[in-house]
């Protein structure tokens, strides 16, 4: 086990993920959700799986899937959660 490489990889990815949109999503979802444990497992699982696919497939999944399609679906997902949050907070504040 090349510990230097492991540490380097950890630090590089950690710094690049800090403040990344996936972490912002984790903060937003984690604070507002009814199940923060599920948010953590979902976020960590999704990120690890995406990285795993990137390493395993070797060419980067971005080249295999139509990028616009994938981002478009993700955008719809985030927007849906956001609108649900606004709808619920309106109910609570009424």
């Amino acid at each position, binding site marked *: *086990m*090349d510990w230097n*490489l492991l540490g380097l*990889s*950890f*630090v*590089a*990815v*950690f710094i*690049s*993920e800090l403040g990344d*949109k*996936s*972490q*912002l*999503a*984790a*903060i*937003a*979802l*984690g*604070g*507002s959700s*009814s199940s923060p*444990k*599920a*948010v953590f*497992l*979902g*976020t*960590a699982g*999704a*990120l*690890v799986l*995406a*990285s795993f696919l*990137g*390493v395993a497939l070797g060419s*980067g*999944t*971005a080249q295999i*899937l*139509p*990028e*616009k*399609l994938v*981002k*478009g*679906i*993700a*955008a719809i*997902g*985030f*927007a849906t959660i*956001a609108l*649900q*949050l606004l709808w*619920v*907070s309106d109910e*609570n504040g009424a």
Partner: protein
Amino acid sequence: MTDSTLDSSSATADEAVAAGTTAESAVRSDSGPDSGPNSEKTNFWGVFSSTFLTIFLAELGDKTQVTTLMMSAESQSPWTVFIGAALALISTSLIGVLLGQWLSTRVSPRTLDTLAAVVLLVITITLVADVMGV
């Protein structure tokens, strides 16, 4: 880009609806008839799947993260690189959720829900801007 996106448009509509339906259970509801261990379990999986789906798709479309990983994977041991990256990703996810939890103790649920919605909408706009090539 190719026109293959048109062929799978109906499939994506189904996926979007599925993501939206499971997303409904992701939001905290202080009122309602849900109670008991059964609905808690359903709720957990609802939150898990909507979170997993949206973040997974957002990350797949993000070239920079995969490129970074691939560049370092040119090294002798790509799986060592992967383990380091996976640990970092798990750590940042944990920090994010804990930060969100801490914030929920500082502000009212309504304020937090609104703030969270704004953040998610900003992410949405960023993704849409990427798609449109802005």
